[in-house]
Structure formats: C-alpha cells, structure tokens
C-alpha cells in the first residue's frame, strides 16, 4: 500500500500545487470583486445597490457547483457559437472565474459589514483634518474595516480552498481530480481518497495558521480587551 502511495505522491502534490494556484487566483480576483460590490452596496446610487444585491443574493442562494457548470458549459456553448467550431473552455479559467464570482459575493457582505462597523467619528475626524473623501476611505476606513472583516474573510478563504475540489468535476487536474485518477489506476479508492483528504487537511491547517498570524498583525495597536 505504502509503495503505491509513494508512487502516486508526486502527481498528487502537483495536483495540490494546482489547487493552491486556483485558490490563490480566486481569492485575489474575488476580493477585488467583493470590494467593488461592497462599495456598490454602500453607494448612494439605487441602481448600483440593486445590482449588487441581486448578485450577492443569487450567487449565495445557488450551489457553487451550479456556478461552475454555468461558466464551463455555458462558456463552451458561447465560445463555440462565436468561433464557429467546437471550443471547450479551459477548466482552470472556468474554475477561477466561477470561484471568484462565488467568493466575491460572500466577500462583499463581509466587507460591507466591516466598513459599516468603523465608527462614523473616524471618517468625520479624517475629513476635519482635511483628507479628501477618497484618502479618508483608503487611509482611515479601509485598514480598520480590514481588521474587523479579517476573521470572516479568513473563514471564507478556508471554505474556498475546500470548494476548489468542485472544479475537478469539469476535469481540472487539481488535487481531487488527481485522487480520482490515482483511484482509477490502483483500484484502492479508500486509500487514495484518504490520502487526498490528509493533504487537504494539511493545506487547511497551514492556511489557518497563516490567517491567525494575519489577525495578530492586523490587530497591532489594539490592546486585548
């Protein structure tokens, strides 16, 4: 058993690397998207608010798997129609797009909560000191909102890391898919799904430690209550 595990390990670890790149790209794109949507939710424009609300409600109300399928199969149909011959969407691109859209919806709610939780007096004080609105937001509101939003944001990142496994369903050879391939080659499903599970456990464990370090760093300057 150990020999077969050892033989498959390089492939599984290559899959884990793809998982990390997929998760990383989705967190970055999703965070930017979430920030824009959070600002839209807090904006004075009724249209922007409505669009942002529809986006977060719809995406958070359907399974992530559905978002992945829409982008992958829908994208394939659209591309095929545009190009004129059968074109399949790249699973990595489709996965990154889908997970970013999902992450953005949750991140938007988290950031909105964080921004709203920054005391109004902070902004007023920054404005009274002569900071323009944009600078007040970037230098005063955002850093404090970030500290408040970090625990929930970290939690959502952990969820995203695990949800990358869903992209295996459209054929991306990340960790989960590599596990399925190893099972096909060895006919030892329990062994290899358990190994895959352990690798995920290590990844989520490391991410938890990293997030904890971030939380401590973001809280510097604040005394523990």
């Amino acid at each position, binding site marked *: 058993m150990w020999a077969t595990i050892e033989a498959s390990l390089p492939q599984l670890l290559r899959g884990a690397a793809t998982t990390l790149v997929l998760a990383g790209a989705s967190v970055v794109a999703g965070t930017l998207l979430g920030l824009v949507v959070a600002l839209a939710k807090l904006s004075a424009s009724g249209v922007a608010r409505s669009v942002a609300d529809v986006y977060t409600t719809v995406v958070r109300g359907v399974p992530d798997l559905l978002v992945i*399928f829409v982008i992958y199969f829908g994208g*394939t*149909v659209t591309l095929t129609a545009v190009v004129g011959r059968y074109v399949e969407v790249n699973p990595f691109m489709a996965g990154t797009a889908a997970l970013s859209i999902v992450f953005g919806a949750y991140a938007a709610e988290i950031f909105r909560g964080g921004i709203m939780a920054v005391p109004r007096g902070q902004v007023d004080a920054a404005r009274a000191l002569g900071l323009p609105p944009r600078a007040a937001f970037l230098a005063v509101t955002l850093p404090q909102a970030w500290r408040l939003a970090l625990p929930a944001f970290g939690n959502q990142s952990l969820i995203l890391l695990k949800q990358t496994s869903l992209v295996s369903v459209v054929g991306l050879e990340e960790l*989960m898919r590599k596990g399925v391939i190893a099972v096909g080659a060895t006919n030892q*499903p329990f*062994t290899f799904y358990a190994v895959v599970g352990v690798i995920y456990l290590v990844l*989520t464990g490391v991410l938890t430690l990293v997030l904890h370090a971030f939380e401590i760093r973001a809280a510097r300057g604040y005394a523990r209550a």
Partner: protein
Amino acid sequence: MLDTRIMLEAVPRLLGGMALTLELTLAVLLVGALLAVPIAMAHESRHRSLRLGARGYMLLFRGTPALVQVFIVYYGLGQFEAVRQSVFWFVLRDAFWCAVIALGLNSGAYTGRLLAGALAAVPRGQIDAARTIGLTEMGVLRWVQLPQALRLATPAYGNEVILTLKATSLASTITLLELMGTARVLVSDTFAPYEIFLMTGVVYLLLTFVITRAFGWIERRTRPGV
C-alpha cells in the same frame, strides 16, 4: 436568445429532481442534528478525552472538502472485503444513503461547532443559579443551557440549512438525480446549458428564499419574553 420552450419543458423534470433534493436535505439535517447535540456537549464537557474527541471529529470534517467525504463513503468503503460482507453493505452500496451518511457527518461537525459556541455563550450566572437551586449537571444542561443555546444558535442554523441544501448538489457526483443531477442530464439532452441552469438556479433560489423566511419566522416566535 433564451429558448423559452426548453425552459418550460424542463420544469416537470426539475421539480422531480427537487423532490429528491428536499428528501436529501431533510435526511442530512436530521443526521446532522442528532450528531450535533452530543458532539457539542462533548466539546463543552469537563472531560478532556470527550473534548479531544469532539475537536478531532470537527477538525476532520471541517478541514476536508465535503466532496472527498462523499467519495470516501461511496467509493472508498467498498475497498474492504469486510465492509462488502457486512450487513451494512446494502446501505453502503446505495448512493442515497452514502450521500446522507457523508453529508450528515459533515453537517454534524458544522452544526456541532455552532451549537458548542451557543452553549458556551449562555451566561455563567445562569448555570451557577441553576446549580444552586439543586439541578444536577445533566439537569442544568437540559433545562437551562440547551434551550437558550438552541435559541442563540437559530440564526446560524438557518445558514447551515441553506448550506446543507446547496451541499446536496454533491450527490449528483455519485449518480443521484437530484436537482443538480437532473439539470446535468437535461443539459446533455438539450445542449442548452443557459436555459436549463437558469431554471435550476431559480428552483434553488426559491428553496433558499423559503428557508430564509421560515427561519425569520422561527426567530420572531422564539424571541424571549420580557
């Protein structure tokens, strides 16, 4: 543009899939809730071994993807001759029960975690007072901590119900034709992903909406008296 005929024709089959999605959701929630109460109690227990056991279980099921858990139960357990010979095999070879077992264990870990948080949030003074008037440790838990913890956990549990509803879509990866599985079959029949997935999304959204409203109602009903 969107083909409305395909969309309308998909409705009866999607509703059929929805019925299985609801059955799965209810079964998973039931298993999850039955596991969550003892797990939460163990997590808050005075006994170290019980606390460690509860933590280990939560770590295992919250630290790995639900898809891995579903695959281990459905594909993995059959690797062992002893399992295939056992009396449980008729359950473990059935995709429905495998999905319920795997997602139920998963839900038990998350629900257990939030219930443990709620148990810990019940004010210390309440527990001391209950002890003082002569309640046993189990009595304090049953009559003082648990009722309040359940109320405190209600909003988070509403969220867990929605997550469970969405997680049942994983059952489509082990051949079950619930809502998502039905949608995939319809897409390969019609080659119309946008139409089919749009209608599928509408059904999921309706279910999410109903759950959200139901929990809003429960929260209003269980608000403590003044």
